[in-house]
């Protein structure tokens, strides 16, 4: 065995000694919903809304959720008492038939394609970051779509739809995402 390798082993051992708690972390693995809730919260941080999207400085960022889902409870844990871009976060639950024009972020949980298309077509205002949970979501006019593969949750972004919505998204997010142009 070569010397550098021994050293590297030592280094690993040392890392173990200085990270005893991280190595034996008691925290249970996060569920898919928890991860998605965290991701949704984090997306808001990387997106800039135009000023017209808010009536005043105190106007909160409204997160709209369509579809009955346990996700809302998880999201509430993340968003309670939090501010992003100096604005509070408000969660609104919508039914599929509602006219949705008050929110800034819209998460469409339902996997029914028809519903999704009709909701997206019925959106009366721009500046809504639409997030979906279906393979085709970005092809029917959605901006962000979660992709789940082998325990890792990734996401794809439709750049054309993003530009249409006049939202500004950090390149850091784009760097991490699978980019789709349609």
């Amino acid at each position: 065995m070569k010397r550098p390798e021994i050293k590297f082993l030592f280094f690993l051992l040392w890392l173990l000694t200085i990270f005893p708690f991280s190595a034996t972390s008691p925290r249970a693995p996060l569920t898919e919903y928890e991860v998605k809730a965290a991701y949704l919260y984090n997306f808001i941080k990387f997106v800039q809304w135009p000023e017209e999207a808010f009536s005043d400085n105190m106007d909160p960022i409204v997160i709209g959720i369509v579809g009955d889902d346990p996700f809302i409870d998880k999201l509430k844990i993340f968003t309670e008492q939090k501010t992003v871009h100096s604005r509070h976060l408000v969660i609104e639950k919508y039914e599929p038939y509602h006219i949705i024009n008050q929110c800034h972020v819209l998460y469409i949980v339902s996997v029914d394609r028809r519903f999704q298309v009709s909701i997206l077509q019925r959106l009366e205002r721009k500046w809504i970051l639409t997030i979906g949970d279906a393979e085709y979501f970005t092809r029917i006019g959605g901006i962000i779509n979660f992709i789940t593969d082998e325990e890792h949750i990734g996401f794809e972004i439709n750049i054309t739809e993003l530009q249409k919505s006049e939202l500004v998204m950090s390149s850091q997010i784009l760097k991490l995402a699978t980019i789709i142009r349609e």
Partner: protein
Amino acid sequence: MKQKAFKNISIKQKLTAIILIISTLALLLSSISFMVFDQIQIKKKMVRDLQIIADIIGNNCSAALLFNIKRDAQETLSAIRAHQHILSASIYDADNNLFAYYQRSGTDTLFLNQIMQQSKITSSIMEPPSIEKNADTPDLPAASHVFIKDNLILFQKIIFENEFIGSVYLHSDMKEMKSRLQGYMGIVAIVILASFLFIYFLTANFQRIISNPILLLTRTAKKVSSDKDYSIRASKESDDEIGFLIDSFNEMLSKIEMSDNALKHISKELQNQTEQLKKELKERKKAENKIKKSLSEKEILLQEIHHRVKNNLQIISSLLKLQIRDISDCSILTLFQDCHNRVKTMGLIHEQLYQSNDLSNINFEEYVRSLTSYLFQIYRQKAANVNIHIDVDNTRFGIDTAIPCGLIINEVISNSLKYAFPDNKKGKIDILLSNNRQKTDKSNNGHKYKLVIRDNGIGLPRSIDFRTADTLGLKLINALTNQLHGNVSLRRRTGTIFTIFF
């Protein structure tokens, strides 16, 4: 020793040495302080640069951290390769779990670990995560750094949207600073050497401003002391302390010159006076010699006179003697004999006088002895049984005293020998002369001498009062005593005692 050696070198060298030492020291000091300041600035800059890098990494990795995509963070960290001085870098997530790690190829891992262990920052980073996952960790500063053994270790929190999402750790070496320091040292050495030479050349020129007047003054002082010329003056070139020194020096010189001139004048005067005195002395000696000559001439003359007087008196005496032989009448014979005696008495004095050393005094004792022996010779038949006792202190008399004295003695002794001892009677005659000078006897009446002539013969007849006597002998005694300004008394208890004070 070194101090003494420095004290003894010339002012010129001292000035040069002092200026060189001071300027080199000042240069060295300013260079060192500049270097120290530069070091501090470089360190600050290094920290700042490293902070910027940490910021960039943090910004670029925030999304990766939030979405837990390690690959992306690793890629971002790899970009550090461009910074040669960064030995290692790590990113930790909010729970202080290692998220991404970078190590420059060829870096000693063990060494990195040692450094890491020594840094307090890292150990504080490595503390167990707080239970609240997303809560800020207020006990840790947003950024901190530490220098360990030429290594800079920097830690910085990654804050995104007011949330602590992880931390960046950077480990940089300080080779850049070291090489910069070495470069500075080289430059400083060159600058000091160059300025040393430059200052040396400048000093060689400028030190003359101070040293030249002093050298000039020294030269003048040497010239003054070697030539003994006090009229030389040092020239003044400036109005500073040296100028004042030169002024004082010149003033001193002029004072010395003045006193020197005065001294010369006095010594000249003294010489003149000495010469005059010598002249006078010579003249005096001449005069003295003249006096001596004339004195000896006079002495010879005086001797001659005394001799002639004696000879004449001798002739008279011889004539009287011849006459005496032809006299048959007894009373006439006595008269002649008396006359003869008196002449002889005077002749004896003159004889003694010209034989004496000083021609003015005679030894009175010697005279009395020769006189009495003569008288005893003349009256040998009558005085066969008479003894004479003479007690005259070693007295010397001048001719004015000796002649009356001699004549008095002659008269008294002749009288005694003729009449005091009839029929060859035994007897004694005393002649006593004492000096009364020391005695303060009032009876002396201020007289110096006391002459006593006595015999123990039959004595003068009662009928004769010697003051009013008709005989020539007694008359002479009175007259001669008067001539001596003295007085005479006569006692006739046992024989005859004449006492004369004079």
